[in-house]
């Protein structure tokens, strides 16, 4: 699954660790999502979308 989390995070100037803290997950989780190696749960996807004030489908797109 492709995602624009890296671009969104960098646009806000948030570090991976800080984003992890905001979402309540580990830094490794953020790294794995950004690299497309880990598909987040629906609950986490909602949290990410809410944090960046956008919709899930605008962040995550199926390959």
């Amino acid at each position, binding site marked *: 699954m492709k995602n624009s989390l890296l671009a969104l995070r960098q646009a806000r100037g948030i570090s991976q660790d800080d984003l992890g803290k905001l979402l309540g997950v*580990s830094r490794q989780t953020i790294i794995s999502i950004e690299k497309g190696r880990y598909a987040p749960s629906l609950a986490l996807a909602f949290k990410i979308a809410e944090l960046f004030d956008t919709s899930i489908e605008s962040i995550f797109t199926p390959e």
Partner: protein
Amino acid sequence: MRAWFTLVGAALAALLAVWALANVLPAGYEVIPRILYAIIVFGGAVGGLGVRKHNEKRNRTADADSVEHQIAIQARAGSFVDGLVIAAAFGLYLVLTAQFETALLVYGLLCVSIGLFWARYAILRRGINQAA
């Protein structure tokens, strides 16, 4: 990692202190070092668990949405299957070496393990269907 070094260092220091104490204690007091060794081993296990929990909380690796948590679930499932294969192979070895009673015990435990899996599966499945 620093917490682990502290724990291991403290445990080694305690073991060394008890070993030194055991060498200077007069005859008849052999039970004291044994009790102290047991306390250190038990304390080390509890301390290890505490350090692990502390690290999980600090790094948020135990959170259900974290990748580490998902990997741990996969590893647990894989280890269970590995355990079944090892137990089955060990049981076969026992049969081939004519240790039938022990083989029966091993295969019995194997059946209990598989039964526990299906019991958990059925409970979880029922829980999901009831919640829906």
